């Protein structure tokens, strides 16, 4: 898998990303390279800097140092909407949806923002399909602020899949609070998008079962630095990862 991945070229590369908040170094010289079509896991203790990394890569925050390239395009410090247009899209750890828009309308936003070249009808059909998959169909026309916590998270994740030119999808704890049955559907959906469209994923999660199922490679962050990279079993064997993150029984 790893070998096959490297043949395919680089989807996203971050080099030396550093971000200070006051005295705290939230990200300290963080580097990561995602091969096209790979599904990478990003794990690490709370406060390790995972979300900060996602913020830096997607333009929500500007790094103090370091650079980010998407394919062969330099995107460091660019505005989030330009980065999204270039095909790098993210979800937020605290699910963000457009509360006064219906579930369907929520999904139409990214579709329209990406140009909607195939016309509105195609978009609506796609939205229906995604809502059905995530068991949100009965709520298609309900305003998003009337969704439950888990439903919001699902809706947020689906939004990215509405973008035809999506290249890299960064998901910050997308399975949090999602029922395990629907979780499986979501995993299938991600794997399907990955294999059929070659979309690259970076998935932040604290659920090792899922990471094991989806991610051939994981990156571990501890205290703002990349502590390890490798298969889950490799990194889970490391003493520092166990003490800082996994605890004795989970590994």
């Amino acid at each position: 898998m790893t070998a096959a991945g490297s043949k395919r070229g680089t989807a996203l590369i971050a080099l030396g990303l550093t971000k200070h908040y006051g005295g705290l170094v939230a990200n300290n010289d963080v580097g990561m390279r995602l091969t096209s079509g790979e599904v990478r896991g990003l794990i690490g203790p709370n406060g390790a800097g995972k979300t900060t990394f996602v913020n830096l890569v997607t333009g929500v925050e500007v790094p103090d140092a370091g650079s980010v390239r998407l394919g062969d395009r330099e995107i460091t410090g660019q505005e989030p909407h330009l980065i999204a247009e270039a095909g790098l899209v993210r979800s937020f750890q605290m699910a963000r949806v457009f509360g006064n828009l219906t579930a369907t309308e929520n999904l139409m936003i990214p579709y329209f923002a990406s140009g909607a070249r195939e016309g509105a009808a195609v978009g609506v059909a796609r939205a229906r399909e995604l809502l059905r998959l995530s068991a949100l169909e009965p709520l298609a026309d309900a305003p998003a602020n009337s969704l439950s916590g888990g439903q919001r998270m699902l809706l947020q994740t689906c939004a990215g899949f509405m973008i035809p030119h999506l290249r890299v999808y960064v998901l910050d704890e997308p399975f949090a609070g999602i029922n395990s049955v629907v979780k499986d559907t979501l995993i299938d959906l991600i794997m399907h998008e990955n294999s059929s469209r070659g979309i690259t994923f970076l998935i932040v999660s604290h659920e090792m079962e899922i990471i094991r199922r989806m991610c051939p490679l994981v990156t571990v962050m501890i205290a703002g630095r990349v502590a390890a990279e490798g298969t889950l079993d490799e990194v889970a064997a490391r003493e520092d990862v166990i003490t800082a993150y996994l605890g004795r029984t989970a590994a």
Partner: protein
Amino acid sequence: MMYTTELLIQTVISGLMVGVLYALMALGITFIYSIVKTINWAMGEFYMIGSYIQFVAVHFLLGPNYWWLAVIISTAGTFLAGYIIEPILIKPMYARPMQRRDDYATVVTIALLLLLRSLAVAIGGPNQYRPETNLPIIWLGPLPQEGARVAASFCAVVALGLFWLVIKKTWVGLALRATAQNRVAAQTSGVDVLRLDATAFAIGVAMAGLAGALLAPLFMVFPTNGAVATVKGFEIIVIGGLGSIPGALIGGLLLGLVESLGTSFISSPYQNAYGFLLVILVLIVKPNGLFGEKVREA
């Protein structure tokens, strides 16, 4: 411009002294905003109520010697008015689930503004009044200052200090700050937010009432006297940043300074415009005000 340094200093001092009083208005507005999430457009009307109570108390009941007692009565009176009005107008926003809370609040307080102001015209008549004052002119070196003005700004500073102490050092202050940031968390912590709302609203408008009472002998009592006070309050909020107590004080002083200097040195008819220009400038440079708080967004 013909101007002596002495007069210049006097202008600045009197500007600063009034600035402190408008800081009181500003603090009242941001305080209410932070708790009940409502811009109280009718703030100036509580200033007006305060000034009318002060007039009635001094002119008909107590006489000029007891102006300070009248000030206390006016402040308490506006507090009471706020405490009565809040449950009628503001509480429905929180007592039952409501969509579009902000819009409701905006319209209700604007309507309250119109109501109180036109009631004052209709009942109190359009005339101006002035509570008598026998405070002597106070000489700061060679510079005369109205006694009432000095007394007013002194009282305002004391009130601001007191407020700061309550907010920073007491449990109620902590609860107020907490509720301002997260109502749900305040409720799960056991704070009775509906009661706190009424108290906060009443405290906020009482600050306006206090300012109105203190300024009544200086700027007189009439139905629309609150309009300008509201205007200054808003300007200070922007300059000082929402919810910041030192910000309000500094904003008030800055505004007083800029207005008195602008009026003296640039052009008098634009007196009220200098404050606005300052506001616009501050906002362009710092969109959250000089002392505005920034929170993590993602």
